[in-house]
């Protein structure tokens, strides 16, 4: 475990993360903004609640929260949430593929769930990657951080608002 000069903890973390993710050196530039967030204080958190008008499927409200008005573009926010909603809809889509998976599982007394990754889990990984990208490209430079809804039990999309001053200094 080598010692890294400067702020040891997060630099080390970011290096390992980029190695794990097998990304290019552009990761180093992106990690700077996340590093800034580490030094910033949390001002507040905004919670985007679920939208149940279409039933129990996972869908989030696209209404732009008032607290973010000074920070970011409404269009961008709506696009992010809409993409998330589309991804969740894809995960929960009822179609030939999901029925086939269900029938096969039933015939094997549901034991294939122990070895196979379900379609839902695959889409959740896609969602995690998408949120990661959005954070790095759009939200971290604005001093915001999106939390993957799966970490909050698919109840809310939590957006953490950090203080603005440390972002401007870089």
């Amino acid at each position, binding site marked *: *475990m080598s*010692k890294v000069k400067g*702020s*040891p*903890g*997060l630099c*080390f*973390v970011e290096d*390992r*993360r980029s190695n*794990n*993710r097998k990304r290019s050196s552009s990761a180093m530039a992106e990690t700077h903004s996340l590093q800034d*967030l*580490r030094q*910033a*204080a*949390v001002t507040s*958190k905004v*919670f985007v609640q*679920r939208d*149940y*008008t*279409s*039933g*129990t499927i996972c869908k989030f409200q696209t209404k732009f929260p008032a607290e973010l008005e000074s920070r970011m573009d409404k269009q961008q926010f709506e696009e992010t949430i809409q993409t998330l909603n589309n991804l969740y809809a894809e*995960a*929960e*889509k*009822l179609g030939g593929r*999901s*029925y086939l*998976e*269900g*029938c096969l*599982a*039933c015939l094997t*007394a*549901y*034991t294939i769930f122990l070895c196979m990754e*379900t*379609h*839902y*889990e695959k889409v*959740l*990984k896609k969602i*995690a990657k998408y949120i*990661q990208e959005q954070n790095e490209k759009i939200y971290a430079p604005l001093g915001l*951080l999106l*939390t*993957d809804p*799966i*970490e*909050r*039990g*698919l*109840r*809310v999309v*939590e957006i*953490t608002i*950090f203080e603005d001053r440390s972002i401007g200094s870089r």
Partner: protein
Amino acid sequence: MKNCEYQQIDLRALRTSTTRTSTNKNSQRVRRKWEVFPGKNRFYCDGRIMLARQCGVLPLTIVLIFITSGLFFRFDCPFLVHQLTVFIPVIGGVLFLFVVITLLQTSFTDPGILPRALPDEAADIEKQIDNSGSSTYRPPPRTKEILINNQVVKLKYCSTCKMFRPPRTSHCSLCDNCVERFDHHCPWVGNCVGKRNYRFFYAFIVSLSFLTSFIFGCVITHLTLRSQSVNGIIQAIKESPASVVEVVICFFSIWSILGLSGFHTYLVASNLTTNEDIKGSWSSKRGEESGNPYTYNNIFTNCCVVLCGPMQPSLIDRRGFLPPDDTPPIVTSDTELPHFMAKNDTNMCTQSTKELLESVAHSTMIQSTCTPGTPKTTPVSQESLLSTVSITVSPSSKSPSTGCSGRQARRPIDVPCSQRGSKQAALHTHKTMLRVSSPPYSLGHSPIILSDAPNMGFIPLN
């Protein structure tokens, strides 16, 4: 020279010893989320298997199934193979395996538990409720009305989980969890039946009804054939007494199991839950406009959706690691994170990084503002939870819990009283359990050790 060497060794030893002790301390502290789970559940195999705390009569269910099937294979099958066909034990074996596998999956799977809201979220919701205009001297109405498919649905606020329950979600008092698409809490499988394990439960009861009917039919055939060969039913019974036991068990089970299968087939076909059916949420007595907003108005589609729909993974992430909560921000980040990184995959890498960021942010905020924040209070609740969890998991304390479940199960069984096998009581038990569990969530006896736990998260340390 000697002094220099001594000093160098001393420094290195100091550094490694501090890192080692802090790593040891931190590796002891790093726990999985199931260890601090606030609901009344038991976890085995390091969080892979979960059960309700009051596992009810699950052992009895397993014993009855094994005994009946065992007696069948041992005493009836040889005769029937000789007289009829070898496929009888084959079919029996397949059905038996199916029943056992689906039973275990129903019992051990997360039924769709919703994790409780974190304090930030809960505070945000409370703020929104207060802003909605109600006076401060009476509790604000804890319901929210929404429109689903042009039908008004009321969402209730759950005071234990501190969130508005999604539609079709209900809080199970026995497990102390909000469960999505809550059907009922089944004491026979020792778990709630909800969104994620409803298909296993349905497969279990359908295959069990096939198994009991099959065994019943085979045993009757066996006794009939034997009585023909020995000229008397009494003689046949004397030669094969086990068959009588099987007949008695199967006879009493068949009515309730078949009835339950039929009832659940109706529920599946109309996309209803037992909870909604019992409460009459969508019955016509409320007016002609109200109907089930979740149905697809097609029996086949409803069946496909309920039984073969996509399987959502567990939301409680019981095998995930807890973020470092009571460690100072900078010193431990380089010693603790390698441990994290080694154990987690890439997904968890992101999670732990984010949680580190958040915990760092939290702890810096707490140090500056001294609010009763989460990270400082969690050690209190976690350690006490851990102590209570460890007490209930240890085998010596099994008697209180089974005693309680015995007491609880005895109440409904006392009503139809002394029926042997008491599978018939299952239906009564179901209905009684449902009626009791809907409004006052206590049967008046359960040792609610952990129910205080959620409140502890909000008590400031000082």
